[in-house]
Structure formats: C-alpha cells, structure tokens
C-alpha cells in the first residue's frame, strides 16, 4: 500500500440521513404549535453539538452556555418561519454560527471599551495542558484551536471537528466554498506551526 493511500478522510456530516430529516420535520411541526415536549426532544438531540461549537469558538463555558441559550430561543421563537426546504439541522447550525459571530462582534466592541479585566481573566482560565498530559496531542490541540484567528477557527471547528462539508459551511457562514476551503487549509498550517514543539516531542518519544 502506498504512503499516499493512507491519507484518506471520510466526511459524514452530522444528522444528514433521510430518517433523521423526517424525524426532525415531525418534531418541527409539533414545535410550531408550541409543544414543549417536542422542543425538549429537539434540544436534547442537538444541544451537545451546538454546545461543542459554541465552546470551541467562545473560549469560555459560561459564554458557550449563553450562546446555546440564544440559539435555541431563536430557533423555537422562529420555528414557524422554517420552510423545511433544507434539513432542520442546517438551519439550526446556520443560526448557531450567526449567534457565535454576533457574540464575537459584541465582544470586540466590548473589548475596545474595556482594555483590561474581563477578557484577560477569560484567557487565563485556559491554561496549557498540565505536565502529566504533555505528550498527548488532544489537549494541546484544543488549546491551539483557541489561538486561531476567528475565521480560521470557525471553519476548522465546523469542518474537521464537527464534520461539516464545505458546501454546508459556505451556506452557514454565507461565504464561498473556495473561501471555506482556503480558511481550512490556512487553519491547519497554523495549527501545525503552533503544535510543532509537541509534534517533535512525540516523534522523539516514539523513536
């Protein structure tokens, strides 16, 4: 087997099969009439993936919770306007990315007003992985993802972590597919750069 044939990646977007769509559609109809149990079922189904995106984007669990809350409030209050042309999950994740982006805009404005305090405290809560986990890549990767510029981070999290296709990301973020691809490639290069000491350490240990 050639070295190159090992580099294959299977991309299966979350919740993209017809049965999931039908089940979602049924729940959406029930949610439109304000049925609380249907809202809860939809929330239960998607809460972790929405929270994962929000957490990795926001750098803070409290902010991530606020984002998740905003997302589901928006979803349930506007579910009547969901036409059902696309999958419910696409609509949900589009709202998620919009809420995240709005949060960054507000945070930037706030940061411009408050030059110290809140934001510095937030970044302090995310220390690099402790000594016992120095050689594990995953915690370093989580840490490095948070160092990426927002645009790169969003596409990387959606594509490589959450498994969305570029077509879906383009629709969510309202950007061209080519832009999504180029942001992803830049994000990966940047991550490799950020993680190069860890990668070298791993190589040295494996020899």
């Amino acid at each position, binding site marked *: 087997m050639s*070295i190159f044939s090992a*580099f294959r*990646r299977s991309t299966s977007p979350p919740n993209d099969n017809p049965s999931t769509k039908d089940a979602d559609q049924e729940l959406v109809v029930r949610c439109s009439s304000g049925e609380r149990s249907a809202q809860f079922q939809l929330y239960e189904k998607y809460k972790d993936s929405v929270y994962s995106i929000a957490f990795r984007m926001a750098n803070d669990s409290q902010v991530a919770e606020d984002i998740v809350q905003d997302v589901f409030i928006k979803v349930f209050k506007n579910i009547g306007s969901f036409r059902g042309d696309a999958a419910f999950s696409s609509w949900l994740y589009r709202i998620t990315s919009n809420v995240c982006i709005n949060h960054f805009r507000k945070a930037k404005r706030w940061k411009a007003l408050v030059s110290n305090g809140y934001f510095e405290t937030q970044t302090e809560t995310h220390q690099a992985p402790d000594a016992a986990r120095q050689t594990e890549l995953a915690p370093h990767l989580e840490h490095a993802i948070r160092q990426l510029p927002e645009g790169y981070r969003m596409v990387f999290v959606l594509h*490589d972590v959450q498994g969305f296709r570029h077509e879906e990301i383009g629709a969510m973020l309202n950007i061209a597919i080519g832009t999504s691809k180029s942001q992803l490639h830049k994000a990966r290069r940047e991550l490799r750069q950020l993680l190069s000491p860890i990668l070298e350490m791993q190589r040295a240990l494996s020899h």
Partner: protein
Amino acid sequence: MTCKNCQKRLSAYLDQESSPAERSVIEQHISECTDCAQALRDLQMLVDQATALPQKHAPDRLWGRIASELDQPNVSRIHDTVPAWRNWLRRPMPVVQLGFAIAILVVGMLVGRYILPPQSDTLRLQVSQQSPAELAALNVRASHYLERSKMLLVGIANLEPHGDERIDLSLEKAYSVDLLREADFLQEKLPAGKNERLRRLVAELELVLLEIANLEAESDFEHVDLLKSGIEQTDLLFKINLSGLNEEKPAKATAASGRQL
C-alpha cells in the same frame, strides 16, 4: 516544486481537492523530501485528532434557563407600539398618492370657496355667544389641563429604568386617556384667534398624550426613553411653564389696578 509550495498544497491534497496533475507533482516531491513527507503526516495526525475530539456536553441546567425564557411573554418591538399615524407620516409618499392628495385638497378648497356658506361668520357668532364668565371658566379649565399634563410629563421625564427592568405605566395610561378627553373638549370650545397659542399647545400635548395612552401597560427602557426624548425635543414642559406665566400677568395687573382703586 519547492518545499514551500508543496506544504502550501498539502492540506488540499489531503482532502483530495488537488487536480490529478498537481497530485502527481506533490507525490513526486514527497517521495524525495523527508520534511514535506513529515509535514503531510503531521497534518494527517492533526485532522485525525480533531475528528476524534470528544463532543462537549451541555450542562443539564441549560434547558431550565431556555424553558423559562420561552415561558415569558413576547416582548414587542418598539415600532409595534409607535402610533399608526407616526408610521404613516414616516412612510415615503409615492408621486401618485401625493398627486391624489393635492387634487383632494384643491377640490376641497373650491367647494369651501364657492359652494359652502362663509364659515367665518358662523364662528364669530359662536365666539360672540360665549359670555365673559364662560370664557373665564374655559381658561381655568385649560390651565388645570395644562397643570395636570405637566405633572404627568414631569413624572415620565423622571423615570429612570435600568436594563431589562419593566415599568408599570397603567396609571399614566389611564391619566392620559382622561386628559385626552379634556383636550378634545378644550379644542372644541376654546375660541379661535384670541387663544391661538393655547390651542396650539393643547394640540401638541394631545399628540404626546396619545403616545402615552398607546403604550403597553408594562413598558421597557426603550419605550420610556423614546417618550422622554420626545418630551425633551418638543420643549413641552417649557411651553406649559411659559403659558402659566402669561396667565399670571393679567391676573397681577388686575390685582394692581384693584389696589389703585
């Protein structure tokens, strides 16, 4: 192909986005360059690790927060409570509608000029029918109206809502409705010409009172702030005070003349 060019293209190669020609050039380069081969392995490892990152779990308490917010009644937007006549005035008027409005105005003027009997005589007759005692009573009633309106406006101007705090304005609404009835009466009875400034003030106040009466019983910061800025911009409190001073002058003059006698 240089190493820099190759490493720039590795991520796309990994995702099988490269053209067949580009693939073969990259594969050729990698087979001869250990650094670029290592870079490819690093990228593959990064992507594999990213895909395997665990899903984060939303805290259990979150649903409670969402459900309680969903239970709250909808907060209507500020433009929903702005009186309809204001929205109508804000709307751009298309040329056809404008032309139609001018035509109606011209027809109305012609009808008034040539068909209806002259109204000025009728008005003069009505004015002349009001006795001095009736006129004095009307003036007292108007000054009470202004004083009550002033109290209401000062009360609203002094409201200091904070953030999401909602304010119960049901009393102010009821008071405004009462004052609006009084404004109707005064506008009908106050004689034209002599009390023109007072009539204008009553009409101006009527618009603000209408806005207060149309507020929701519980209003938020935005509603109150809009109202406060409206009161400030129209200088209504200043005009009411000025009107009060004008009334005092003749009263003082009468008292002074009485002492002379």
